[in-house]
C-alpha cells in the first residue's frame, strides 16, 4: 500500500498527521506531507485508511498493491 496527499486539495486540517503520525507529518505551514516515499507497512494500513476516511477535503489517496 502507498499513500499520497493531493496538495491541491489539502488545506492543513491536520487529521492525517494526528491519526497516522508514522505516515504523515506537517510542514512549516501546517500542511500535511507524506513521510518518505509513502510506502505503508502492513501494521500501518489501518491508520492509513483512518487518515483517508477522516480527511475533510478528500485529499488522501491510497494505492493498494
Amino acid at each position: 500500500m502507498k499513500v499520497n496527499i493531493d496538495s491541491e486539495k489539502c488545506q492543513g486540517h491536520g487529521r492525517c498527521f494526528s491519526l497516522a503520525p508514522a505516515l504523515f507529518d506537517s510542514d512549516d505551514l501546517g500542511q500535511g506531507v507524506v513521510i518518505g516515499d509513502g510506502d505503508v507497512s502492513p501494521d500501518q494500513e489501518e491508520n492509513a485508511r483512518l487518515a483517508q476516511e477522516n480527511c475533510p477535503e478528500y485529499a488522501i489517496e491510497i494505492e493498494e498493491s
Partner: protein
Amino acid sequence: MSTTDKAPVQDFATDFDHTDPSWVKDPYPIWDDLRQRCPIAHTDRYGGAWLPTRHEDVAAIAHDTDHFTSWTVVVGNGRPGEDALPPPIGVAPPITSDPPFHAMARRLLQPVFAPKQIDLYESYVRELCGKLLDPFVGGSAIDASLDYAEHIPVGVIAKMLGFPEEDGEIFRGFVHTILEAVDKEPEERIEDFQPVIDYFTARIEEHRENPQDDLTTFLLEAKLGDMELAPEHVFGSMLLLIVAGIDTTWSAIGSSIWHLAQHPEEVARLKSEPGLLDTAIEEFLRAYSPVTMARLVKEDMDYAGCPMKKDDWILLSFPAANRDPEMFENPDEVIIDRKVNRHAAFGLGIHRCLGSNLARMEMRVALEEFLARFDSFSLADPDAVTWSQGQVRGPRSLPLTLGNF
C-alpha cells in the same frame, strides 16, 4: 440579546433569522426540517440571505470563491461601506480576503499556527487551566463557562498578541460587539466599534516603540513581497485573532463540558481510556460545531435552483452540514468513539480555520485538566444554561454541581 423588536419567525424556510430565540435555544430541529424540505432556505431579513443546510451545498459554496466573496463574514443589517477595504482584502485578512490576495495574507500567518509552534503554548494553557480550576476543587459548584472555558482562549490570545492578561474583560466586550450584537443598526454598530479601534491603536503604538517577541510585533515587521503590511492589514489581522480565537474555542470547550455533564458514563470511560479523548473531541466538534461563516453573492445568478442576487448573504452553516444524515450515520447521536468523522467544524476550502491546531490543543488540555480534577459533575439546572446568539454557538452560562455521586 436582541436590541431591536423583531417579528418572530413564522417559517424558517422563507423567513429565517439566526438570532430568533428558538434558533438560539435549539437550532438542530430547525435545520433538520429545512434539510428535508428546502434544502436552501431564504430570508428577506438582513437585506436578503440564504441558508444551505446540506453538507454537499455547504461544501460546494465554501469551495466556490468564483461566485462567493468572503469580503465580510458576519451577517448583519448593513454591507461594507465605500470606505471599507475592498475585495480581495477585506477588513480582517485573511478571513475576509479572496484569491489571489488571500493566499499571501494566509501564508504569512500559517507558520505561527502550525502544529509545532502551537505545541509551545501547551504548558501555558495547562498552567492557566489549573489556576482557574484549583479554587473549585473540593467545592460543590462551578460555572464551567463563566468560571472556566471563557478565560482559556482569552489568556492564550492575549499571550500570543502580547497584550496585558488583565485586559481579558475588554476583549470579551469587543467580541460581543462584533459577533453577538449583529441585529443592531449599522450606525449604532459603527459607534460601538470605536473603542475597539482605540484599544488596538494603543497596543500597536506601544509595540512600535517597544518591539516584543509576540504576534503584534511579528505583524508590524512582516512583509508581503518587500512591502510592509498596510496599517489596516495589521489592525485587521489582530482583530481577526481576537474575534476568531476567543468565542469560538470558549464555545467548543463549553459545549463539550455541557455534553459530558449529562453523560457520566462517558466521563467514566474517558477517565479509564484517556487515549479516546482526541476522538471524542472530534465528535464534540462535529455535533456541537460552534462556528457558522458567511459569504456574499458576487453577482446575480441562479445557484442550485435559488435566484441569488448580488450582495445577498450566504449563512454558511458548518454546524448544519455536520448534522446531515447523508454525510454522517446517526448524525444527532454523539458517539465519542466515532471512527469515521469527516466533519467540517473548521470550515472547508481555502479558509480552513487558521487556528484549528490551537483550538484543538486548548480543547484537549481544558478537558484533560477538568476531568483530572472532578470525579463527577452534572448540570445544576438544565434550564439555567444560556446559549450565545449569532454565528458562534456555545453555552454562555453553564452552572454545574460538583460532587461524588
